């Protein structure tokens, strides 16, 4: 059963003389447990589409049905609340709050949801253990490597038990080893816990791991392939 349904999504920017169609009629659906990559050249609209999917940008037209709600019609306040409870985010950079430790960054989401201190601490520790950072919980982002920071971001994204995690170019600033580590962790979480990951990426290493590759060009889906990951 699809957890996300995207129906004829369009995003038009009218600030310039000639309107720019960043997303121009996309229809897609995503199942639970997918490990999907959205690829395309720069300016193809993949980040814009991901942002619309995550409710941090509003489409000009179309519907996005998540958990039987059309999030495109939600108000700004409702969207924030929806994101907090249903969607996890991993960005390319500026993922973490620099003044909080790793565990505090993960707890932050849980505090926004109103969980008690003990529950927050327990869950945050568990998640950091899952991403192999159980011994770095009290380090601030500046004391962690890029790859470690992204792993903390993954732990934070999972803290609220979201329906799916959106990752926008999560490996863009990482070296190959860190990328491999990060992807392995995400793949493991996807395989063992059924967490849905949707990436926007240029990185071929991410594409190789994905079991579904959606190619976007000029705001439209040009191909949508379900493939077996090259993980041997």
């Amino acid at each position, binding site marked *: 059963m699809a957890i996300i349904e995207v129906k004829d999504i369009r995003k038009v920017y009218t600030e310039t003389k000639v309107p720019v169609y960043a997303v121009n009629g996309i229809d897609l659906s995503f199942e639970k447990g997918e490990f999907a990559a959205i690829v395309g050249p720069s300016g193809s609209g993949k980040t814009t589409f991901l942002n619309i999917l995550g409710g941090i940008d509003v489409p000009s037209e179309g519907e996005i049905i998540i958990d039987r709600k059309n999030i495109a019609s939600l108000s700004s306040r409702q969207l924030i609340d929806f994101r907090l409870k249903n969607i996890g985010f991993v960005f390319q950079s500026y993922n973490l709050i620099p003044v909080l430790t790793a565990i505090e960054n993960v707890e932050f989401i849980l505090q*926004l949801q109103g969980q008690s201190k003990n529950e927050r601490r327990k869950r945050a520790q568990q998640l950091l253990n899952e991403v192999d950072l159980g011994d770095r919980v009290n380090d601030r982002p500046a004391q962690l490597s890029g790859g470690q920071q992204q792993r903390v971001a993954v732990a934070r994204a999972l803290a609220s038990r979201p329906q799916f995690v959106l990752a926008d170019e999560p490996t863009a600033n990482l070296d190959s080893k860190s990328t491999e580590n990060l992807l392995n962790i995400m793949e493991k979480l996807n395989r063992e816990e059924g967490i849905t990951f949707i990436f926007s990426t240029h990185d071929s290493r991410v594409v190789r791991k994905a079991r579904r590759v959606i190619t976007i060009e000029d705001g439209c889906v040009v191909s949508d392939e379900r493939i077996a990951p090259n993980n041997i």
Partner: protein
Amino acid sequence: MLLIIAWRNIWRNKLRSFVVIVSVSLGLVGGIFSMAMMYGMINQRVQNIIENEISHMQIHHPKFTENYEMQYVVPNAIELQQKLMSSSEVEAVCSRLRIPGMASSAQSGVGVMILGIQPDEERRVTRIHKSLVEGSYLEGRRNPIIIGEKLARKLKVRLRSKIVLTFQPREGELARGAFRIVGIYKTNNSVFDQGQIFVKRSDLVRISEYQDDKVNELALWLRQMDTAPILSKQFQKSRQDIQFLPWRKIQPDLAMVTDFMAEYFVIFMSIILGALGFAIVNTMLMVVMERIRELGMLMAIGMNRGRVFRMIILESVFLCLVGGIVGDGISFVLIEYFNHAGIDLGLFAEGFESWGYSSQVYPELESRFYFIIGFMVVGMGIGAAVYPAWKVLRYQPAKALRME
């Protein structure tokens, strides 16, 4: 956690925060210390005027203060004096004969206010005897007189010189008497020093050829200065034929100044904090615009705009509070020190004394003003952060994340 994030955020750029904190502190020190000096000067003026000139309360015939005519006496003054002394609120009472007159020397003549006193009573109510710079306090001799230093200079007389006092004891009559200067005093009020002279009341009565003693003024020294208004009303109920005047009614302008010190303090500090607030607006704008992507990320992951707003406000409040506490602390230390050591403004002594103010200033400030400053600083912090916070909240998360 908002509190923790806000507090830690202000230390991300230590230099910038340090500059803001120092600005706020120095601004506050300047404002608070200026106010403390003014407060100290005014309080000293009130103390001086009460101790040397008017005491806590005065009693007169209702018509006496119109023209200071000797005929308007306080009926049964001695009996009233004894009754007042029996009150637990009253520490001392003295009886006086006050009359305007003329003091003349061989070189000059000046209009003066002649105060005929009982020296032993008077020293319990006023501190003139402690203001003597030469001579003694109306002791011994026939027709002794104490005059102010400025009057002595004006009349070109000195200790042991003789001056002639002329006054009108009753309608159509003049009385005249020669007095020998036994003491010269100096207060912080050169106008008072020039205008006020002290003689024995018995000498005045004798020169006036009155049959019996005359008292047209009673001056009271209370145990607590603040009880003057209430006591005057209480005493007034028992005697409708005379006037009980607390010092605030004798010197209403000074009373008004002391009453409005708090309001004046708030206005003065508001001006200083308003100016500082603009600097903080600028700083907070830099702080939030530098972190626009981070704030966009926070909104993206589920931090609502209200929380983002509160976080920015808190950062500004914390910054201002630290500056406020440092400023309050430095001000407190400075005020405490100079309250004991004093600040000598002798260079401007003549100008100060012509207005009745001492040139040796002892700054002081009530504790409540430090708390008022605390609230005002918080208000400044909130006010300074509103525009920067509003500016950031206008961004959609997607747009904020795209910012460089």
